């Protein structure tokens, strides 16, 4: 009975559940740069590079999936490394705009290299190789690595850079190096999400990786809160499920999507998963108990 119920549930919602996983990876990828105080919105582009690199390898050359996944991480990481040196000198809004422009350039290049990428028609017939445990494992490993990093000198360096770049440099922290690390690692995680997603949905096209996706990734992280690793994951879960939950609203559904985003920014400035607030609430509950 339960098994049958789960079977139907999984038939209907497997894709949604796995989308939650890949979106969580994306949110974590932008969390990395945000943790360093950088607003880089090139993650949609890195996701595209990862998706195309891996899909081309499995589709055209029949490479094994794990190798294609590795390539899907390596390609955006390499790209991030190449553009990182000049780009990461910028800060604040300027960095955001430069990465935005980079994202547009990537999308247009994908459109224009149609011999390889299929242009606007995209790549279709990508083998569906992603299993649920691939996504689970990828998310678990990513979370474990980031969790460790956070509680090590790297995490402290990130936070120090976020708070005061100059002071961080004078603590002996290689500011440019750590920014690059966050940027490249974020690109690799975004690429992984892209590669997993591409092998889940049979099809990828350049339109999926534009400005909207970049904003969506950022929104997930901010919505959940970037004070912890749980925040981005929570944000990804909510933003992925929200459209399903709001189905009844029909034409005005996305209006509520936007409204929720505004309300959270206004009333939950540290995101939904605000550790301090949660601790406070827990304290109140304990006192009342």
């Amino acid at each position, binding site marked *: 009975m339960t098994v049958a119920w789960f079977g*139907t549930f999984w*038939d*209907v*919602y*497997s*894709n*949604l559940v796995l*989308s939650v996983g890949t979106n969580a990876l994306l949110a974590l990828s932008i969390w990395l740069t945000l943790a360093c105080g950088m607003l880089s919105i090139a993650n949609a582009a890195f996701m595209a590079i990862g998706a195309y690199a891996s899909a081309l390898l499995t589709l055209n050359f029949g490479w094994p999936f794990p190798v294609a996944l590795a390539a899907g991480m390596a390609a955006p990481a390499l790209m991030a490394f190449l553009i990182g040196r000049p780009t990461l000198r910028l800060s604040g809004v300027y960095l955001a705009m430069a990465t935005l422009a980079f994202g547009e350039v990537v999308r247009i290049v994908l*459109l*224009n290299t*149609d011999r390889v990428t299929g*242009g*606007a*028609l*995209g790549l*279709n*017939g990508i083998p*569906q190789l992603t299993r649920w445990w691939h996504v689970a494992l990828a998310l678990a490993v990513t979370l474990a690595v980031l969790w460790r990093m956070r509680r090590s000198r790297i995490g402290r360096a990130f936070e120090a850079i976020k708070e005061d770049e100059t002071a961080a440099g004078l603590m002996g922290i290689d500011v440019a190096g750590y920014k690059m690390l966050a940027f490249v690692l974020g690109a690799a995680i975004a690429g992984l999400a892209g590669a997993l997603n591409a092998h889940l*949905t*049979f*099809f990828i*096209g*350049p*339109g*999926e990786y534009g400005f909207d996706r970049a904003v969506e990734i950022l929104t997930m992280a901010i919505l959940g809160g970037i004070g912890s690793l749980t925040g981005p994951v929570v944000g990804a879960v909510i933003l992925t499920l929200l*459209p*399903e939950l709001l*189905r009844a609203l*029909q*034409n005005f*559904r*996305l209006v509520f999507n936007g409204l929720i985003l505004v309300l959270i920014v206004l009333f939950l400035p540290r995101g939904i998963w605000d550790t301090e607030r949660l601790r406070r609430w827990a304290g109140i509950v304990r006192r009342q108990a």
Partner: protein
Amino acid sequence: MKRNTLAHSLFALISATALAATAHAADIKIGVAEALSGGAAQYGISIRHGFELAADEINAAGGVNGNKLQLIIEDDQGKKEEAINVFKKLIFQDQVLMVFGPTLSNSAQAADPIAQAAKTVAFGTSNTADGITSIGDYVFRNSVTEADVLPETLRVAVKHAHIRKVAVMYGNDDVFTKSGYDNFVKALEHAKIPVTTTETFAKGDVDFKAQLTKIKATHPDAIVLSALLAEGAPIMVQARQLGITVPFIGGNGMNSVKVFDLAKGASDGLYVGSPWSASNESPENVKFIKAFEAKFKTQPDQFAAQSYDGMHIMVQALKTIKLGGNLAAERSALRDALPSVKWTGATGAFQFHRATDKAGKPAGYDAQQTAIVSVTKDGKFVIEK
């Protein structure tokens, strides 16, 4: 919007009463997955209207062998992930007999494999990209690809407008217009018509004069335009403003009476080829247009005509199979019955022809129809032979 919901609930109420009256009749659940929000909603909503009109007509005439059609309509937002989710919901949760949609070819590339794996018919009425029906033998469409109509459009245009060389313009970031372009190129090569220059534009562009100025300098005899109306109409207006008087040869995307409004004063001289034309006075088409205008207070377009016909085509197959019992058996029976359907509707005479997959093995089914070529003149489509 509000009126629609009201109409919906009224319809539900009426069908519920009808259901109570005829005790033995069961509803046949038909899934409809179209883009009802987002940028593609303008096509999705038109498509939904076509389905609703056809289903109402069929139900009013007593349904299919006494069974009423029940449409379960879901919004895929024009996104591939949503299309997958919606297909899964319709197939596994709502247990529909078959699914119409999705609106966009990209979504179809992602969602149709789901239907194929579940051995459920996926019937596209608006997907024109190559390769969709290669996905498998449960994938059908009655939307003609440009490959089928463009040679005819070119032939007629060349004959009437004395075309020796053309310039090409297309939207390169959209599947519909890009695949239209690919087929134009093939058709032009086949007809041995030289291309003076090829220009592109992107969705949301407001200015096309740079491209048009370049085109003007190459002195083509016509401009081949693979565009959707949103950009196609402004392109025609701006071309006329630059003193370009040569005719346009458009794809499916331009085949809409809205062109007379959106390109008012500059809408003459556009050749379009499509199985459906607003000016086609066949009795089926006249009836369709009349009924559509009465029901929705707006003029139909090609998307509505194709979905309208799609529903009728499906119902022809449905009539021949035995319902009741095993859903899986019903689904595959429907699939087996569909390929032999022949139907004459708003888009004229229709039949399927088999498509092949990448390896050349038989796969799904494409439309086989003859194109009607018409040219715009004084706010009307005039059919040319």
